[in-house]
């Protein structure tokens, strides 16, 4: 069995300290048991943050959207920035779970469940921001095409309506993909659990037993879902970028936007996976499953996408100069040296300069260094969207229409609160669902062999 040989080698390569199949169940399912003090502290902090988030939002609903700093000419501010940021975060989850699945990358197994959960919660968070942004949230259903009393339909030629379709499809498909991949692990959790948890897992595992027929169809369905999710993830951020690129605003109206946004999304998303898995590994003692090799692979992906993103920045500046258009040139000069120079330079340093350190193997193999770099990237990528949204709108064609935007306290509270909202769901996830894919990990572990055992016995004798 030649394939088994390569699989054993691969398993030994990625998880040298995991020997038996049921070790995986033991190690992963113990994470679902009684939470420690650290978890409760984080959870309480996130609950407080969610309170702030909802409080600020309710204040804006009560007092009106005037409590935000949004005013002509800058009608899109922190809310749209944060929306694009969270959609971007979501992307690497699908990249790791779908694209790397199709490419059979052996290092994805340990991180993909956490990355996929991150995707679902990040899209959930992102989806709130257009609702917050529109102000009168009770009219949000007008975006949905339904036959109404005015006999009018949404304008399907508008990128904003494309976005509604893209983001809702993305949320639905990634949630389904996530749930489907979890079913066999929920069955594993069911078989070990007792009491109330057992009842819960019995229901959500839907009677999965791991029979040959179930696995056969499951495997095929999973491949097709991955094949559908792969173009989906590329399309979603392209559509988000067209929200900007379809408008004739200097700094937005560029054909580079779709690939530039997709690369930026994967860059920020991989950084977020590192930010989330480093504490996960530490708290739950998962050193045998999340090895330095996994972090090395993620760091390389980060470095690669950072190069694409930085190239996009440079080509944007170059093309603004090369176009010879005064508004375009003026806008990009204003980006670097105008009112928002600090945001632009934060973006350039965090996304272009700091990741240069990832060229060094010693940095890629140091977990604390990666954690710090990933935080820089998260900050840099938020500022990238801020720069794109705000600097362009504040400095369009006519000088009399230029203006300055200052985020209000309410906006900042909602933006910061969204991180706690995301953390709240992620923490719940680490306690309720197996945060590491049990069955996928077993696929890369060496299968137990009777003949090999006889051979080993001789070797030990």
């Amino acid at each position, binding site marked *: *069995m030649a*394939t*088994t040989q390569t699989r054993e080698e691969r398993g030994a390569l990625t998880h040298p300290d995991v020997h038996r*199949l*049921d070790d995986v*169940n033991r190690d992963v399912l113990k994470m679902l048991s009684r939470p420690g003090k650290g978890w409760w502290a984080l959870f309480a902090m996130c609950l407080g943050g969610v309170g702030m988030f909802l409080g600020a939002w309710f204040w804006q609903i009560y007092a009106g959207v005037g409590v935000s700093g949004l005013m002509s000419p800058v009608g899109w501010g922190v809310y749209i920035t944060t929306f694009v940021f969270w959609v971007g975060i979501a992307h690497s989850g699908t990249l790791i779970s779908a694209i790397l699945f199709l490419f059979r990358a052996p290092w994805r197994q340990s991180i993909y469940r956490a990355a996929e959960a991150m995707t679902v919660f990040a899209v959930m968070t992102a989806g709130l921001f257009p609702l917050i942004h529109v102000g009168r949230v009770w009219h949000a259903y007008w975006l949905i*095409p339904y036959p109404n009393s005015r*006999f009018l*339909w*949404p*304008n*399907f*030629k*508008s990128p904003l*309506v*494309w976005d509604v*379709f*893209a983001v809702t*499809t993305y949320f*639905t*498909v990634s949630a389904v*993909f996530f749930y*489907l991949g979890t*079913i*066999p692990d929920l*069955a*594993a959790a*069911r*078989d*070990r659990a007792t009491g109330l948890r057992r009842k819960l897992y019995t229901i959500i595992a*839907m*009677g999965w*037993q*791991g*029979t*040959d*027929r*179930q*696995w*056969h*169809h*499951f*495997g*095929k*369905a999973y491949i*097709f*879902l991955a094949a*559908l*999710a792969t*173009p*989906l993830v590329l*399309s979603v951020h392209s559509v988000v970028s067209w929200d900007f690129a379809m408008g004739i605003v200097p700094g937005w109206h560029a054909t580079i936007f779709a690939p530039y946004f997709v690369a930026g999304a994967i860059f920020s998303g991989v950084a977020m996976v590192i930010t989330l898995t480093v504490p996960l590994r530490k708290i739950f003692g998962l050193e045998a499953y999340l090895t330095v090799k996994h972090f090395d692979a993620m760091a390389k992906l980060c470095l690669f996408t950072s190069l694409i993103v930085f190239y996009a920045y440079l080509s944007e500046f170059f093309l603004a100069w090369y176009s010879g258009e005064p508004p375009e040139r003026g806008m990009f000069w204003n980006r670097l040296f105008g009112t928002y120079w600090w945001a632009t330079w934060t973006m350039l340093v965090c996304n272009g300069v700091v990741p240069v350190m990832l060229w060094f193997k010693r940095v890629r193999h140091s977990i604390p260094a990666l954690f710090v770099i990933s935080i820089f990237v998260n900050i840099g990528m938020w500022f990238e969207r801020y720069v794109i949204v705000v600097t362009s709108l504040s400095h369009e064609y006519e000088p009399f229409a230029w203006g300055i935007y200052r985020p209000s306290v309410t906006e900042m509270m909602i933006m910061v609160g969204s991180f706690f909202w995301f953390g709240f769901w992620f923490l719940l996830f680490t306690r309720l669902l197996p945060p590491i894919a*049990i*069955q996928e990990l077993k*696929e890369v572990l060496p*299968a*137990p*062999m*009777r*003949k090999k055992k006889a051979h080993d016995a001789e070797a030990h004798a």
Partner: protein
Amino acid sequence: MSQGVLASYEFLDSTVDAIEKLRKAGFDGQITAYSPYPEHHIEHALGYGQSPVRVWTLVGGLSGTAAGFGFTIFTSVDWPLVVGGKPIVGIPAYVPIAFEMTVLFGALATVIGLFVLSKIPNVKPSVVYDPEFSAGRYGVFVEAEGSRLQEARRIMEAEEPIEMREGAADA
């Protein structure tokens, strides 16, 4: 309810050998194998072909494309309104919608197809199951009665199972 015998194995190769020998003895279609992860050696031993899930995906995806284009064109014609000097029916602008609908319908049809074909959700799981099958053991269940049951039992026992028991399955 059909009678049968269940064996659990520690090793993959003994499971595969047991399945192959059972098929040679003419137990085709009466065997159910359990494994903690998708094991293609077991699938191979049972002689699986293509999964019909792909038909669900294709039909779902194509109906999504049709629905996406159909709906956008219908609504444009239903209330003709010139926007931005573009044609009433602007096909390029509808491509993103049709694409998203293709993916959405295709994905949902795939999952429904999987549920139908693998018979989940199954509120009343069969009695013949061992919680160890989701941990680290492989299982083989053969549906048989009388002397055939004894024959299956003999074949399965030859491959050194950890445990064997007779039971009834909900068929």
